[in-house]
């Protein structure tokens, strides 16, 4: 039974991927991409990687899908730009050959990987009591490979500033993104009023349970960001201008707290990002809380784009 399910899932993933590539029109292609991401999330669930599934659904399908939709809307009427950026037939053939060769190489490699695969899973679980957390993924992200997570958090700040810096000089300090009229009736208005209270609770919950169950700052922050974007698109919430100091502190709070706790390790434990026994969990939760805020702020700002209209 489960084999039939898996084969159907695999065929659906390949089918939706092919459809997304072949379909004409940008809007249907984005819808295909989002559907593909959601199917992939199901694949991860079937593989037992619920954390990855949550991330794929929230970031891979959700946040990336919204970014692509915004791009489609902004490109309306920009036929010249689209034509200039559309790859020529030889470029498409080259891309197809590259993908084919890489795919074939990956298939050969995958079929020759050692079985059972060498794994650090047991080792990662063994040290969890020391950290006071139950989810081994959190152990990896916040302790064993904390530096990776810290640097990825800093990349989010890069991304926000890089997007802002593409604005024209005269727009510096202005409000990011387009202005949406207030929706006083209709489905969007209803959604934007009903969903955020629930979504905010769910987002905070997912970030909170991350220590012991699938979830965490990136997934929770993305859900919070989605609620913010919903309210913004419905005209119910105005984004602060890029000159706003509060906005900037919100973006850097996560990485700064992360570094602060890391440096504290020099004093109260054995070095950078090392947690003293017994205090690991509160410190990890402190970082996670600050990071949830920064992830949410960064994702809203990435979707909104460069500053566009005067404050």
């Amino acid at each position, binding site marked *: 039974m489960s084999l039939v399910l898996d084969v159907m899932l695999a065929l659906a993933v390949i089918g939706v991927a092919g459809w997304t590539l072949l379909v004409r029109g940008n809007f249907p292609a984005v819808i295909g991409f989002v559907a593909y991401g959601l199917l992939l999330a199901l694949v991860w669930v079937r593989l037992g990687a619920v954390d990855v599934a949550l991330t794929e659904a929230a970031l891979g399908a959700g946040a990336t899908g919204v970014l692509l939709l915004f791009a489609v809307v902004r490109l309306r009427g920009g036929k010249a730009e689209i034509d200039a950026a559309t790859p020529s037939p030889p470029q498409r053939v080259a891309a197809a050959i590259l993908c084919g060769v*890489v795919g074939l190489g*990956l298939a050969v490699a995958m079929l020759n*990987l050692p079985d059972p695969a060498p794994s650090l899973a047991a080792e990662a679980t063994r040290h969890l009591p020391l950290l006071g957390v139950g989810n081994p993924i959190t152990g990896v992200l916040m302790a064993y490979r904390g530096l990776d997570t810290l640097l990825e958090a800093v990349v989010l*700040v890069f991304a926000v500033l890089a997007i802002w*810096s593409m604005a024209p000089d005269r727009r510096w300090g202005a409000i990011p993104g387009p202005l949406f009229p207030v929706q006083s009736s209709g489905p969007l208005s209803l959604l934007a009023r009903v969903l955020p209270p629930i979504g905010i609770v769910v987002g905070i919950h997912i970030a909170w349970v991350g220590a012991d169950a699938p979830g965490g700052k990136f997934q929770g922050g993305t859900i919070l960001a989605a609620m913010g974007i919903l309210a913004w698109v419905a005209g119910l919430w105005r984004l602060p201008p890029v000159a706003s100091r509060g906005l*900037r502190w919100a973006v850097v709070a996560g*990485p700064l707290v992360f570094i602060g706790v890391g440096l504290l390790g020099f004093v109260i*434990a054995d070095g*950078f990002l090392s947690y003293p026994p017994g205090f690991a969990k509160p410190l990890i939760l402190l970082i996670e809380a600050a990071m949830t805020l920064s992830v949410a702020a960064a994702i809203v700002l990435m979707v909104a784009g460069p500053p566009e209209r005067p404050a």
Partner: protein
Amino acid sequence: MEATPGGFLLVLMLVVPVTGLLLGFALGGRLAERMALWLLPPGLAMAAVLVAGLLHAKAPVVAFVGGWAPPLGLALRADGLAAAMLLTTALIIAAIALFARADYTTAPGAPEARAPLAFWCFLLALWAALNAAFLGGDLFNLFVALEMLTFGALALACLDGKATQFKAELRYLLFALIGSVLYLLGTVLLYGAYGTLDILLLAEAARADAPTIVAASLMTVGLLGKMALFPLHLWLPAAHAGAPPAASALLSGLVVKASYVLLLRLWFWVMPAALLLAVAPILALLGAAAILFGSLVALRQARLKLLVAYSTVAQIGYLFLMFPLVAGSAAEVAERAWTGGALQAISHAFAKAAMFLAAGVIARALGHDRIAELQGAARIAPLSVLAFGLAGLSLMGIPPSGGFSAKWLLLQAALDSGQWWWALVIVAGGLLTGGYVFRVLSAAMQGRSAPIFPLAPVDAAQERVALGLAVISVLLGLLPLGAFGLVLIGR
């Protein structure tokens, strides 16, 4: 290898510029600039102390972040090569910061502007990213460093906000991101095969089986794309030549070297020797093609900045001649080739940064960078033309210069290992480099019948910075070769 004392220094080399970037971004305006300038002395001091420590202990410095040893945790390792690149990075970043003060300063009380904020923040960002790329002891941690580098470099290159530049940088982004994906795929395969991504642990375990070969191929092609090795150089000339001078100097001088060091780690540490022996001649062949093609195209350029960019395409080629000369050679020859390759990376970094800064000053003073109309440039920007010439000497490999020592070591290694054909490429490349450097100098040194006035005033401080970098690239050749024993520590 166990963690060593002094490991905290490695952590601080990442954390200090990152904290500066975060605070600079949050505080904004003039404080972002202050933050970057304040952090130059501690940054330089940390790199100098690290080099001194390595030379004293003759052993690498290692840190286990959070106290977790690999394979579970992450190691930062500063061997001789890393320490040399870190010091090079600190010096060039400091020089570029001093150069950029004239362009991106914010007067006290002035409102925050876009370009200065982005410049100072991303200067610190790239510094952190380069440090992470040289210190990383784990292949995934190095992937994060590569991502930081890509986005930082992209934002700096787009700083002028010109539509044509966005197009060139979009192409760069496409190459860089495909390169990142290929690198990441290889990393995943290696984890699946060995259960660790630590470079030293992989080195003990690596076999020449199918997953390893596929992983090595994917990662190598990805890194070559990021380094713009011929024939994957298509994105580089427009992306580097169109950027503001301070950004071009960073991109051409330093950013491509991060992928290079990573490639060295992949082949000379991780991969089994048998695989390296098979791949080394192919890499060197591409390098030779890059030297000849890049130099010939540079010779035919009409614009100064594009000439300098194509010169980067050519000079990157030299870095790859080292592979067959180190692999499978006797210890002494291999050491010579290794030192030559590392020295080429370092002296090119100084020379190319000097060249792009000098070209920037000349282009601004004349209002154009057409080589055929450079007459009088030596009169209005004499120090810049001198800097360009000195950097050119180093690129050509004329003694005494860092470029000469590098190319001489590679040449000797080629002859001693019986691979004389690479020596021919080195000599031919030097002659072609001489051709394009003299083309610029002879035009710039010509007088003009009519008096010439600079379109924009020439900033003497900027000229001195360019000259300083060029002088360093020459002085490297006067250091006794023993000083470069540094790059052999921990090899």
